């Protein structure tokens, strides 16, 4: 609750800060300060101190799961701002507004992570999406940016339509929007209407989470959007959507898993396959990362497939690991002039420290042990096997993980082993240290995941 109100409030503040504050640095610091505040407040709530006890008529419930995820999301955003806030200046003139939008998105994230009513889910998703349409198009002179935002907008609102249809059908059978009571209802009476609604919801959520075959927007949008914002939406937003996804299906359709598990399985396989295989041949690192985000989504889908406690824990860990690593890589990528793989040749000579950290992030994404990426994938596999008799799915996932190594390591090879003078990029000392800390965090989570997960068991 704290976070919800504060984030909306901060959004408003940032909106005006553009007018009140002259220097961009001031705006940036304000935003960062606000975010720290947000993080603190949210953690306080996690520890049990709620500032504004508001009765939401059970539409929003901030349980540990939600709060823990919010913490992760805020933390990731904080790191993101620390690393890349400066680079937003390059995008356009409306510097303060970007921050405002980001805060609004965070507000939406708090909603999607804690909804108990389809209405809130709907609002949350929209609050996330609409600012994203804008951020995607914020580089107005750039045709790619425009194209990306229009594509995103059209496809996005189409999927919204699907979602609403689904909600309507569900409402038709159950007569309520409250997920828990829907769950209770589905437990007793399955009906074609309900199932159709459920599947429409599945599709629309799959779209938002860029799960194949509803993923088509992802590469284009991530590629077209200004890299700063790609970093944001590829990590934190996607994570939030997944939390919403698993929350929805756990609460509302937990009992009807026979009806959806098969399809989730198909979606998972398709996502893993398309994401990984397509990424192999990419020439631009940015686009490769877009596809890799699809591939990672495929792994997160495993959590949905398994739908047990392991899966939830794992998903939290996964979101953290994935967001941290990807943000790190993007932060370096943003500094680059040339986004192609060749652009990275000889990078290690140019910037040994950045190269080292980037390597750690890539290893984490590839799921190499001692990094958070491994343990999160490990959790996914464990959860999936825990539900029994789906070994082939797991094996497939694992083979695809091996494929993913191929394209992640292309970057490493370029940085370390390929000859090249490397692009001359200037980075500030704080930036470097933030990266190092982030890398350390990734490794720490990779060795002691409990640091994160035990928060669930207060």
């Amino acid at each position, binding site marked *: 609750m704290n976070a919800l109100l504060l984030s*909306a409030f901060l*959004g*408003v503040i940032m*909106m005006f800060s553009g007018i009140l504050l002259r220097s961009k640095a001031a705006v940036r610091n304000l935003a960062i300060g606000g975010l720290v505040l947000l993080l603190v407040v949210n953690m306080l709530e996690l520890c049990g101190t709620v500032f504004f006890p*508001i009765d*939401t*008529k059970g*539409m*929003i419930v901030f349980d540990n799961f939600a709060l823990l995820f919010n913490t992760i999301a805020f933390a990731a955003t904080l790191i993101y701002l620390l690393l890349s806030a400066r680079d937003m200046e390059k995008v*356009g*003139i*409306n510097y303060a*507004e*970007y921050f*405002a*939008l980001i805060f*609004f998105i965070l*507000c*939406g994230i708090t*909603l999607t992570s804690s909804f108990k*009513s389809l*209405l*809130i889910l709907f*609002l949350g998703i*929209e*609050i996330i999406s*609409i*600012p994203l*349409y*804008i951020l995607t*198009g*914020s580089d*107005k*002179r750039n045709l790619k940016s425009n194209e990306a935002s229009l594509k995103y907008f059209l496809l996005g609102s189409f999927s919204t339509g699907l979602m609403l249809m689904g909600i309507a059908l569900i409402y*038709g*059978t159950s007569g309520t929007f409250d997920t828990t009571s829907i769950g209770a209802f589905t437990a007793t*009476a399955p*009906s*074609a*209407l309900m199932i*159709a609604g459920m599947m429409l919801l599945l599709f629309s959520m799959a779209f938002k989470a860029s799960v194949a075959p509803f993923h088509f927007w992802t590469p284009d949008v991530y590629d077209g959007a200004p890299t700063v914002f790609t970093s944001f939406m590829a990590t934190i937003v996607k994570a939030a959507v997944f939390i919403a996804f698993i929350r929805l299906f756990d609460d509302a359709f937990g009992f009807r898993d026979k009806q959806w598990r098969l399809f989730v399985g198909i979606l998972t396989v398709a996502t893993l396959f398309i994401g990984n295989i397509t990424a192999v041949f990419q020439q631009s690192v940015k686009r490769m990362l877009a596809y890799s985000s699809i591939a990672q989504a495929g792994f997160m889908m495993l959590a949905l497939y398994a739908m047990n406690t392991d899966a939830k824990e794992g998903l939290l860990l996964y979101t953290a690991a994935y967001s941290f690593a990807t943000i790190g890589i993007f932060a370096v990528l943003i500094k680059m002039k040339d986004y192609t793989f060749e652009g990275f040749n000889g990078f290690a000579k140019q910037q040994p420290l950045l190269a080292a950290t980037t390597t750690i992030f890539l290893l984490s994404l590839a799921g190499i042990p001692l990094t958070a990426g491994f343990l999160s994938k490990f959790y996914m596999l464990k959860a999936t096997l825990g539900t029994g008799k789906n070994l082939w799915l797991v094996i497939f996932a694992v083979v695809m993980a091996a494929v993913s190594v191929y394209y992640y390591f292309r970057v490493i090879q370029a940085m370390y082993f390929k000859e090249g003078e490397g692009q001359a990029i200037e980075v500030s000392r704080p930036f470097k240290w933030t990266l190092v800390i982030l890398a350390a965090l990734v490794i720490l989570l990779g060795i002691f995941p409990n640091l994160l997960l035990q928060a669930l068991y207060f």
Partner: protein
Amino acid sequence: MGITQILFLFLSVVALFSALMVITSKNPVYSVLWLIATFFAISGHYILLNAQFLAIVNIIVYAGAIMVLFLFVIMLMNLNKESEPRKNRWLKLAGAVAGGCLLLVLVAALRDTDIKLQKALVNQGNIGLIRNLGKELFTTYVVPFEISSVLFLSAMIGAVVIGKKE
């Protein structure tokens, strides 16, 4: 059959027909007008279902505001029949077939649900009235209502960010 049935059928036919016209008419301006017609028909349904509030809002917001906005944009770009881009035939066909299939599948799936015998209460029942809705909205649904303000804020900023000249 009674007046309500007749009205229902009439409105449905109008809605469907004008909806079809929306997607078939070459000239975008006509499409807009047909869409407005569709909305009117739908509002008619609302009235038939005794949901006056929504009927009004629908007319005002959709037919009134949104569609006019559309109309403005289209005229601003002065799009017309000539400038209207054409999809090639096969893609059109594919699209139509796909949509048709979806329709068939859904209808076939929902043909006999457990609620097929139930009826929607027509032209009575007062939940659709402003008094009731307003009460609900500002008591139970106040939180979502406030939240939607965030939505509008962001939309506003968006419009500014996108629209403002650099």
